[in-house]
């Protein structure tokens, strides 16, 4: 490649030499990562390739590269999430960034004023990158409109969770060596899932088939118009899937009448050893965590041979390193 260098090569060099930050125009043009829907297939591939280059950082004895040395990353979480925050923190630290946790409680009143003021105040302290989690769809867009630093969406309402989508896709690519042509099932509470939406957009762009499986009350028909297959009888279709990604089911859903009981849900849509017998022999089982063992997935399956759940967690680090690295680079250039 001449002229524009592929950022994954940058990352590789970084990992190899463990020194120097480079400023050049890159194939990744975005300062922020707010959703996968707005990315192209090439841009998604750039992130995956960059993540691959970062992967061995995690396996070395000194788990650091200086890509974000002297930079400040703020974890701005308006909604609790120990796992995602920890993953972002470790990823930022492996890039040598300084990391601050800001756990904000949203009060019932003046949320907007405080959100806008909060992010402006944080930015004024010289922050380079905000990692944001919020219970309202679109909140990271509001934040990005109000600051000049990079903003990474770590989950907004039911809208998107782009880094989770990316790490899922990364895990699939790692196991299957391709995305194109695979049939990926996402099973469960799709309606309320930002993970499902990010997976849908990312996987479709890379050429996979995406199938949503779950009760009619949790898998709305409208997703067909966005390109997903919709199924409500898991047993009838389970043998079609190369990957089965099980979503967490929340107990609160029972009181909102989307299904009558967790037992019935588990009977119809839970991934058990029994049901696994009908799946493809090389099926890859995933879950964004935390798992309700015995509800959406039996313990045997979660811990079984086909489960990629812990690999997903490990890959989350590389993917988040890649995203922070690329967004920072784009912000420096632009």
């Amino acid at each position, binding site marked *: 490649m001449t002229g524009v260098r592929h950022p994954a090569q940058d990352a590789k060099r970084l990992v190899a030499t463990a020194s120097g930050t480079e400023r050049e125009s890159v194939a990744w043009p975005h300062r922020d990562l707010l959703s996968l829907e707005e990315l192209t297939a090439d841009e998604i591939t750039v992130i995956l390739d960059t993540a691959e280059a970062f992967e061995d950082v995690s396996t070395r004895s000194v788990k650091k590269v200086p890509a974000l040395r002297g930079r400040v990353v703020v974890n701005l979480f308006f909604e609790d999430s120990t796992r995602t925050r920890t993953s972002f923190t470790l990823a930022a630290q492996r890039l040598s960034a300084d990391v601050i946790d800001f756990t904000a409680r949203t009060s019932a009143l003046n949320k907007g004023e405080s959100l806008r003021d909060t992010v402006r105040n944080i930015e004024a302290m010289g922050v380079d990158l905000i990692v944001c989690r919020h219970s309202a769809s679109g909140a990271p867009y509001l934040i990005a409109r109000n600051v000049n630093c990079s903003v990474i969406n770590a989950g907004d309402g039911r809208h998107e969770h782009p880094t989770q989508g990316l790490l899922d896709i990364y895990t699939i690519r790692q196991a299957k060596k391709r995305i194109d042509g695979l049939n990926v099932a996402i099973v469960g509470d799709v309606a309320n899932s*930002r993970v499902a939406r990010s997976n849908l957009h990312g996987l479709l762009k890379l050429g996979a088939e995406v199938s949503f499986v779950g009760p009619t009350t949790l898998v709305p028909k*409208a997703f067909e118009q966005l390109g997903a297959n919709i199924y409500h009888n898991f047993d009838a279709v389970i043998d079609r899937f190369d990957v089965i990604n099980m979503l967490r089911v929340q107990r609160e859903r029972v009181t909102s009448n989307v299904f009558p009981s967790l037992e019935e849900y588990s009977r119809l849509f839970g991934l058990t050893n029994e049901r696994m017998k009908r799946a493809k022999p090389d099926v890859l089982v995933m879950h964004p965590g935390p798992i309700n063992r015995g509800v959406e997935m039996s313990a045997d399956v979660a811990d079984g041979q086909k489960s990629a759940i812990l690999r997903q967690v490990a890959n989350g680090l590389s993917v988040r390193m890649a995203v922070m690295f690329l967004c920072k680079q784009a912000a420096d250039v632009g």
Partner: protein
Amino acid sequence: MPDKTLVIKGGRVIDPSQEIDEVTDVTIAGGKVQAVGEATGHAAETIDATGKIVCPGLIDMHVHLREPGREDAETIASGCAAAVAGGFTSIACMPNTEPALDTEAMIEFVYRQAARADLCNVFPIGAITKVREGKELAEMGQMVRAGAVGFSDDGRGVASPAVMFRAMQYATMFDKALIQHCEDPDLAGGGCMNAGLTSTRLGMPGIPAMAEEMMIQRDLLLARNTRARYHVSHVSTAGGVELVREGKKRGIDVTTEVCPHHLLLTDDCVETFDTNFKVNPPLRTREDVDACIAGVADGTIDCLVTDHAPHGREDKETDFQNAPFGMIGLEVALGLYVKALITPEHCDWPRLIAMMTINPARVLGLKKGTLEPGSAADVTIIDPEMTWTVDTSAFRSHSRNSPFGGWSLKGRATHTIVGGRLNHVFSHENVVSAQD
């Protein structure tokens, strides 16, 4: 009140209440319309209306003034200034203030503040239930004595069929319309935009069209049984328009209204997460927009309203789900109606003006919306060809929450005459208001 004669010369006078549509003069004296027809005598003052439309003062029967309670967003005075700037000589204000307009004293308060502002007529709509809670009937009789022109719990519908049934029964005594914000709260369940493809995509809780349709259907049954006068607020769905159409055919005393945004915008506008597109009822689909336009064209929809709903910047500058519902409309509505209805020839000027004058006057029982000799001289002069660009920073409203900033529109009120007094004049060259 000026006693001298004012003649509006040579305009296209459109008064649907008298089926007038001709180029002629309107003579005003002593704050009243003296005559429609060629002016012969001496006039102290004349306005040349050549090329313009001269019509009864426009009426907006669905406006939110935030006084009392949220004067930072709008006062009765600032709302009136916005009204006359948009060509409205009369507005009816909804009772969802803090506290609500649910007593005689609150109705009197609105009249007093409107008299102080002295810019246009303000007609308060009283709450159906105390504190708009949907539980106990508000003192409708006493509010009528104080001048309430209709009843509504607008901002929410009366959820209980039993309460609505009693309210309708009771209101028939006063011959006032019950104006319902049709939205079943159970089905709407915390939604913040139309339930559909876009809400699914964005992961936003949706308000299904069914929530509107179900309450209209229920209320039509109640209205048939009580013979109450029933008015569907801001209809937004194809199903809602169809229900009203059928209700009228069955002889139920039902009327309805539509807002400019439900004639021009669809729910995919929300994909930017711009809170200025958050409105209740929510922006719907193309199919719903087309049905609303068809409802205007065939007369199912009686009135055009703005649902002017001011919100301060700090309230709207939040994430979409937590932002308040509403957009302002008084200063842009006329141009938006022209864009939605006149330019694409869905209706003509006489019909448009009827929907903004005599029709709302009839729904609310006002002696307004006409140029009949002897009636109060509320007159609006419209330049139907004037093109202009919406500049929200120039609004007289205290608020700026309009998604139409930057839109190029055709048609604008140039003169707003209230009770014979010229309260607003607009031209590209000079902007003068009675308040300036």
